């Protein structure tokens, strides 16, 4: 299969998945206790029966069930994710507003965790059985067991409150009037702690995976062939072991994208990072279901997009995929 037809196939699947999530959302609204109209209105409209009645008409909630479903899904597909009465704005606008911050955070965390994880995994595998390896694996084990939000809180406590090295709150210094490079620098400083804490867990995951995979691949026959050729250790590690060992790591990284988004809800909550995760948290308290479900849908869309990207990367790295069947 060519790359283009693969991407096309994946896109078709992505649209189907999104449709399915929209349907799921619809059923969730109806599963919530109480009147769906009240659910859609959130707390804000709960008091006003007339308002609820208007909503009912507007969302076709007086219509038969399948028509309601159709209306809902059609709206979602046209990017109408409903209206947040709590925030007084269409959900899609709220999300669009917050999305860049989340993208910045999650992508930074992803890059940090993947590059550090692979580097440390390679280092540990190269020193297998020695003290430095045990140290690294123990650290990874610890990070792997640490609740993300707690790590975030402790990072704030240590690096922001105690040491005062980095800001522990927000996206940029409010009212600083920075622009251009100065602003970028300011944002970067704010980014470090959230991105590091979000990346920490995943770094541990990738490190363990890389280490195990490196050790496994280094037992394979073709590594022996490479040694029989007279290649040096570093070349064998880089060209033969690492390249093959990275395949499962890439697969895992693709699968983990969803968890990164989930982690963003926690990290953004702790650091008051103005992304869609924080938006979700705020909406939880306000029972703003429209926004919650909207964020859910958009984050799923992000994950799907990301999975397509990893698929493409995988095909580039591994010549066997796509040619085999």
């Amino acid at each position, binding site marked *: 299969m060519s790359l283009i037809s693969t991407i096309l196939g994946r896109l078709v699947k992505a649209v189907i998945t999104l449709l399915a999530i929209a349907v799921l959302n619809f059923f969730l609204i109806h599963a919530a206790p109480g009147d769906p109209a009240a659910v859609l209105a959130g707390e804000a409209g709960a008091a006003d029966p007339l308002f609820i009645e208007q909503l009912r008409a507007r969302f076709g909630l007086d219509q038969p069930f399948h028509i309601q479903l159709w209306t809902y899904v059609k709206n979602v597909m046209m990017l109408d994710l409903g209206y947040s009465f709590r925030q007084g704005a269409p959900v899609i606008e709220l999300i669009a507003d917050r999305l860049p911050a989340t993208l910045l955070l999650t992508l930074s965390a992803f890059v940090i965790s993947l590059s550090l994880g692979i580097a440390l995994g390679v280092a540990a595998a190269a020193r297998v059985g020695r003290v430095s390896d045990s140290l690294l694996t123990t650290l990874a084990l610890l990070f792997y067991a640490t609740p993300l939000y707690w790590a975030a809180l402790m990072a704030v406590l240590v690096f922001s409150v105690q040491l005062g090295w980095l800001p522990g709150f927000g996206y940029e210094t409010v009212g600083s009037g920075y622009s251009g490079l100065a602003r970028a620098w300011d944002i970067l400083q704010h980014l470090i702690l959230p991105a590091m804490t979000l990346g920490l867990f995943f770094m541990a995951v990738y490190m363990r995976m890389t280490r195990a995979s490196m050790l496994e691949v280094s037992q394979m026959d073709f590594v022996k062939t490479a040694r029989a050729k007279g290649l040096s250790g570093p070349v064998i590690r880089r060209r033969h072991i690492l390249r093959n060992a990275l395949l499962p790591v890439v697969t895992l990284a693709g699968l983990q994208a969803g968890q990164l988004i*989930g982690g963003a809800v926690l990290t953004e909550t702790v650091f008051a990072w103005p992304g869609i995760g924080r938006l979700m948290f705020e909406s939880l308290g306000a029972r703003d279901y429209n926004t919650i479900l909207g964020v859910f849908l958009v984050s799923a869309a992000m994950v799907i997009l990301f999975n397509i990207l990893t698929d493409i990367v995988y095909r580039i790295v591994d010549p066997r995929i796509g040619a085999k069947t």
Partner: protein
Amino acid sequence: MTFWKRFSSNRGAVIGLILLIAVILIALLAPVIYPGGPWKMVQRPFLVPFTTDGFPLGTDTLGRDVTAGLVHGARVSLLVGLVSTLMALLIGVPLGALAGFYGGYVDEGAMRFTEFFQTIPNFALAIVLVAILQPTLGSITLAIAIVSWPPVARLVRAEVMSLKRREFVEAAHLAGLSNMRILVSEVLPNAVSPIIVMASLMVATAILLESSLSFLGLGDPNIMSWGYMIGAARTVIRSAWWLSFFPGVAILITVLALNLIGEGLNDAFNPHLRKGRT
């Protein structure tokens, strides 16, 4: 070497087991140690740890004993972790087994379904489920189970697919045994070890998920949990660090113990795959 010998030769696994037994004991004995429960205000608020006898870990914003909270919180963590994992196994094992064993359209359908659930960001789905169903112990457990089963299904499917091509399974077909009997008595028993390993790691993940939900305020309001304690203390982190610190350590220890046990089980089940340890 016996299984137990292999397991106990792994130092980490033994430490994990001891830690877990300690946490289980604490959870079981909570009503005995702190019969008054975790909600009672017993001292003045913001009591600093290690300063007052009887309140070694201090008190929280409302003067509740942090130690009592930790001890009672262990119950929720373990309960939710265990029950949600069992539920996830109940969904994932049959689904994966049928998909792997029968292949074809059954497999196609089951795997599309699994893939769908795996694509959805699982923590976000858990949040949505708990928010919509209202936070109770039941809805939290259910939500965690719903987001945790897909890896089980995939694992079991892969195991069954590889096992069903083994010659002993083909021999069972030739012996005239029924498909169900072959699946249940020939195939699945040979897939038990990886399932057990995964389950022990899933309990750990479930505990993290539960605590994360509670942290966001999506915990059962009637039950004290570690995540709730941290969430409630989040805003006072600058003045009362211990309120978030100790519950976090409790989660860390429990999750770490389970992960160590999982790794130990994995090594003990696959003695030939042990690498990098001496």
